[in-house]
C-alpha cells in the first residue's frame, strides 16, 4: 500500500514525487513506457530557471528523475491499464498487477495532436513526424513543412533547418502565437519560409510522404506541393481518456477544484493534463509541487479523522 501513486513522469509528476517522498510519504510513480514526457522530444530548453546556458530537455528530465529516486520514489516504466477511484484505497493496474494508494496525483500530461487529414496516420514515421529533434537527420537534403504557429512549431522548424534543404511553415492564421524570440529566430532564418492562412488538407504519397494538398483560407484556393516531410506541431491533447469518473472540460482537460483537487476526493491533478493555458515545463513543475502539498495535507486529515 502506497501513500501516494503518481501517474506521469514529466516535470509535474516528478516534482510531485520529490515533494511527497521528502514528506516521507511512500510513493509509487507510474512513469509509462515513454517516460519523461514532452521534454524528452526537445533539444535545448532555455526558459527553465537555474540553467543560464540552457539545458537539453532529456538531460533535465533525467536530473529530475534522479532527484525523485534519491528520496525513495519507486518507478514503474510501463503504461497503466486502468484506475479504480470508486473505493478507498484507490487502485491502479499496470501490466496486469494492481497497486493500491491512499491518494493519487494525475500528471499524465498531453500528447501530440495530429492533423487528422487523409493520408496522415499511415505515414507517421514514413515522413510524418511530431519530433524534429528525433527525425530531422533523415531529412538531410530534403524539403519539409512544419504545421503550426506556436513555440513548438518554431523549434521544429529551427531544428529541421539544420538538415533539410528547405523548411516551410504552414500556418492557418496570419500571425504566430509563438514567443517573440522564437519567431525572430525563424523569420531571420534564410532556409525557412512561411505560408500564412494555409491549411494542410491531405498528405499524398505511396508508402511515404510525397506531397501535400494545401488550402488557402483567405483566397479559398487549393494547391498541391511536393514535399518529403511533414512535421506536425499544432498542439497537444490532454491524456485524460483513462479516467472515467474524473470531470474534464469539452477538450478533455481535467477540471480543477479548489487547489489542484479533482471532483474525486483524494485524487489530485498537476500539469498539462489540466492546464490548457500555460503549458510550460516550469508551470508544470509548480503545479506538481502544489498538488503534492495538497495530497500531503489531505492524507494528514485522513489520518486524524
Amino acid at each position, binding site marked *: 500500500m502506497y501513500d501516494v501513486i503518481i501517474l506521469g513522469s514529466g516535470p509535474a509528476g516528478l516534482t510531485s514525487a520529490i515533494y511527497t517522498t521528502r514528506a516521507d510519504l511512500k510513493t509509487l510513480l507510474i512513469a509509462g513506457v515513454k517516460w519523461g514526457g514532452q521534454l524528452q522530444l526537445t533539444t535545448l530548453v532555455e526558459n527553465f530557471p537555474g540553467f543560464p546556458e540552457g539545458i537539453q530537455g532529456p538531460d533535465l528530465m533525467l536530473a529530475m528523475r534522479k532527484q525523485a529516486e534519491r528520496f525513495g520514489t519507486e518507478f514503474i516504466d510501463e503504461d497503466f491499464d486502468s484506475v479504480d477511484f470508486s473505493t478507498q484505497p484507490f487502485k491502479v493496474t499496470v501490466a496486469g498487477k494492481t497497486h493500491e494508494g491512499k491518494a493519487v496525483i494525475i500528471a499524465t500530461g498531453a500528447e501530440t495532436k495530429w492533423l487528422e487529414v487523409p493520408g496522415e496516420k499511415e505515414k507517421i*514515421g514514413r515522413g510524418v513526424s511530431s519530433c524534429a529533434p528525433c527525425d530531422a537527420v533523415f531529412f538531410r537534403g530534403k524539403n519539409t513543412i512544419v504545421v503550426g504557429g506556436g513555440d513548438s512549431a518554431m523549434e521544429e522548424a529551427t531544428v529541421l533547418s539544420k538538415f533539410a534543404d528547405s523548411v516551410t511553415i504552414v500556418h492557418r492564421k496570419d500571425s504566430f502565437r509563438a514567443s517573440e524570440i522564437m519567431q525572430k529566430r525563424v523569420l531571420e532564418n534564410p532556409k525557412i519560409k512561411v505560408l500564412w492562412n494555409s491549411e494542410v488538407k491531405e498528405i499524398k504519397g505511396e508508402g511515404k510522404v510525397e506531397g501535400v494538398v494545401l488550402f488557402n483560407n483567405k483566397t479559398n484556393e487549393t494547391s498541391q506541393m511536393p514535399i518529403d516531410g511533414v512535421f506536425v506541431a499544432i498542439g497537444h491533447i490532454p491524456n485524460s481518456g483513462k479516467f472515467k469518473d474524473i470531470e474534464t472540460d469539452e477538450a478533455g482537460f481535467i477540471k480543477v477544484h479548489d487547489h489542484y483537487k479533482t471532483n474525486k476526493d483524494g485524487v489530485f491533478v498537476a500539469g498539462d493534463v489540466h492546464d490548457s493555458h500555460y503549458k510550460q515545463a516550469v508551470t508544470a513543475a509548480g503545479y506538481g509541487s502544489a498538488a503534492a502539498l495538497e495530497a500531503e495535507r489531505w492524507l494528514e486529515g485522513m489520518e486524524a479523522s
Partner: protein
Amino acid sequence: MHKISTVDLTQKLEYSTLDMADLTFTDQNFADEVLQSQTPVLVDFWAAWCVPCRIVSPIIEELAVDYSGKLKVGKLDVDANGTTAQNYGIMSIPSVVLFKNGEPVKTMIGAQSKDNYKKEIDAALAS
C-alpha cells in the same frame, strides 16, 4: 513481470546497454546476417542521439532472451549504416523491423511497450 526499479539510472539510461554482446548489424554484414538468415531477424534501427531509442534498447535486450532460438535479435546504428536505413525507408527511430526470409514483414515505429512488441512479433511469426 515488470520491475519496480530503484536502480542506478546512469547505468540504465546512458548507452551502457547498447554495446552488449548481442548482434550488431552493419551495411557490410546485413545481407549475410539478416537477409540470408534461416531464422527470422528482429532489427532495432537506432542512433546514439535518439532518446526514445535509449528507452527501447533494454526492452530489445529482453526480447533477445525471451525469443532465444526462435529469433535473431540485433541493432543497427543508422548514423554509421545509412545505406541500409535508407534502403528500408527508415525516417523515424526507433524503428524495429522483423525480417522473414529476407523480407521486412513488420515495422514497429516509435517506443512501444514490451507487451506490444511481443504481440506484433508473435502475430508475424505465426503467419
